[in-house]
């Protein structure tokens, strides 16, 4: 949800904050299956901006935290798929298909809110997600 930040960000801050969300979309550009790519992209972007202004840092951390949980979910799906493909005692089953469909649903939802956050922060609005927002607030200090 959108809320007011403690100060109004400048045009350049809004652009950088928006880019932190766009970084997490990079996985789609380089190929979806490797779950580590989007996490790495947001992590590098955060490192590059860790001394930036509060608004930029705040959004970099929120993007990073959301990617971290997505990374766990996607990694399980990735390694499960690898074992289905290469291990003789593992095969396509209903729990596997249900998990992959869940991963797909979660990723689509995450994609939608990330695009929305990128657009809003580009306009200088402050977007604080449910759970990730308060968690970011605890980690990131002005």
């Amino acid at each position, binding site marked *: 949800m959108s809320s007011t930040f403690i100060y109004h960000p400048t045009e350049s801050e809004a652009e950088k904050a928006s880019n932190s969300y766009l970084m997490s979309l990079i996985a789609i550009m380089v190929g979806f299956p490797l779950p580590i790519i989007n996490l790495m992209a947001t992590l590098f972007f955060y490192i590059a901006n860790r001394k930036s202004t509060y608004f930029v840092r705040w959004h970099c951390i929120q993007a990073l935290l959301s990617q971290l949980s997505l990374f766990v979910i996607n990694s399980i799906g990735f390694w499960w798929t690898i074992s289905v*493909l290469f291990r*003789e*005692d593992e095969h396509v089953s*209903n729990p596997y298909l*249900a*998990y992959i469909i869940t991963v797909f649903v979660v990723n689509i939802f995450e994609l939608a809110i990330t695009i929305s956050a990128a657009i809003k922060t580009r306009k200088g609005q402050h977007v604080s997600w449910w759970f990730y927002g*308060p968690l970011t607030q605890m980690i990131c200090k002005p």
Partner: protein
Amino acid sequence: MKKTILQAFILLSLAAGIYLLISRVNWMKLFRIEKMTDALEQKLGDMVWAGMEEQSIEEGKEYDRVDSLVTAICKSNGFNRDKIKLHIMGDSEVNAFALPDHHMVVHTGLINAVHNNDELSGVLAHEIAHMELSHVMKKLLKQMGYTLLISITTGEAGGGAIKELLGMLSSTAYDRKLEKDADIKAIEYLKKTGISPNGFADFLYRLGEKDGSLGSLSWISTHPDSKERAKYIREEAP
């Protein structure tokens, strides 16, 4: 802090809830995966067998001996005997293997190498276990993939692919875990039939010793660690 922990808990519960809800749907049935695999298995079995049919012995003393043992195992374990298509091959190699669609091939070399029916029953129970546990198709799907298997059945992959598939099933071992699973199941089948698994263990031990009188030992070369297997079969036997 408390609020954030509560939110994390709700988020995790939500994710688990979504998964549980989605897993209520029978996706295997919806995507017709089992039906597709069964149809593919039947087609593959028929195609592979068509190439070997000429060398098969479908009657006589040897056939009757193996048939009676297979029938006894099936009857005692509640399996449909008619599902298993038994074939005896005139080949001196000590070998037996399962093909797709419940085709079971036993070489005369194996029949001559065993000392008694208990030993032969052990090998037959092991191959029946591979079939009952769907190991044949699991192995083929892993090593060749759906696309290649489908292209074999449509003739796109060429005749060489069937030979490759047959070679894989008759001379390459399943992975260690599947072999052990088949051994454990075989012990169960033998016990239910009233046959002591010790005969199976004795045969494996002899194969492990690479007894020269046994001739060409395909079954041992495809099933590693025979002595170790003989040991755990003996442990499981009463």
